């Protein structure tokens, strides 16, 4: 078992020294096709959360999973070029702020209560907007905020974990691809 690991580590070291990062070309090709579909499916789950099963949390995790797939296939540096750590943390904060702002808008507009569904109660009530994409007032907006926040958060967790794991033991790091 240890012999096998040493062999695979040696192969990986050789690939890294040749300038090849990440996994093999099969994984890279497949994941470059699939990543867009996964990302689109996450956006669909978030946007249609008030009509079909799903919602902000599940869609956000799918968005994060598409980036995790890229990180596994192409290596951490490739992902950090696309979505770096400061940008991801700003997205995270933007999602949290958006959710809190939606909650505050209910307080400001109707002077009713926190998290009052002001768009539905004021503008959409009584119209035939049911079962359409633009319905349910603040619920789709909240879904978008939660999805942004959860996706950026999980991406940040995995990114920081991989950075920390890599630099934890600099001399004995088995593979530098994460």
């Amino acid at each position, binding site marked *: 078992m240890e012999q096998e690991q040493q062999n695979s580590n040696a192969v990986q070291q050789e690939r890294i020294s040749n300038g090849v990062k990440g996994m093999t070309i099969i994984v890279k090709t497949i994941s470059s096709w699939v990543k867009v579909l996964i990302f689109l499916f996450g956006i669909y789950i978030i946007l249609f959360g008030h009509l079909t099963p799903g919602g902000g949390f599940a869609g956000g995790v799918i968005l994060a999973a598409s980036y*995790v797939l890229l990180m596994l296939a192409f290596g951490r540096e490739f992902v950090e070029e696309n979505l770096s750590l400061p940008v991801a943390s700003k997205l995270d904060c933007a999602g949290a702020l958006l959710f809190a702002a939606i*909650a505050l808008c209910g307080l400001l507009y109707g002077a009713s209560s926190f998290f009052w569904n002001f768009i539905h109660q004021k503008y959409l009530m009584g119209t035939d907007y049911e079962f359409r994409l633009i319905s349910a007032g603040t619920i789709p907006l909240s879904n978008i905020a939660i999805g942004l*926040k959860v996706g950026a958060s999980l991406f940040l967790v995995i990114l920081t974990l991989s950075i920390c794991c890599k*630099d934890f033991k600099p001399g004995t790091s088995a593979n530098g691809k994460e």
Partner: protein
Amino acid sequence: MEMFYILLLFIIIAAVIAVETNDLLSSVICVGAIGFGGSLMFLFLRAPDIAITQIVVEVLGLIILIRATISRDRTFISGDREFFGVVVSVVIIFVIFLAGIRVFETLPAFGTPIFAQAPDAASQTYISEGMQKTGAANLVSSVILDFRAYDTLGEATVLFTSIIGATVILRRKSKKLLEDPDE
């Protein structure tokens, strides 16, 4: 109904294998099988929202576990268990099992929750007036983002705080090194 017993048997077998096996990779895969069995159970209980969330989190957690355990740890565990620890665990599990039997005698039957029977329960209001009050066709999202949005806010705050902790503790360089012009 038989479907649930089959899934339960599958989950129990996977859990036993996950504890008993010596190989770390097969243990992690068995943990994933437990999660997938649970998500199938949610699907057959007609709770697709929870099933989707469970299966997605399960995939991501499985990837993290495999990447965290396999590539940087010894994947084969050897050695015997301590006798005292095994005895204590078995006794504690037996006590919890006895208490669980007493608790389950008081619960309503499977598939008939007590909220569905009480006429003035809060869930009856959600079911009958949720569509009209919030306009959302998916009642689950109307509950978690409108009626019970405070819970979602608290959940988001918990996630936010944990992410802050993780990024602060696990960052690559400390503040001193960031101010260092050489780096």
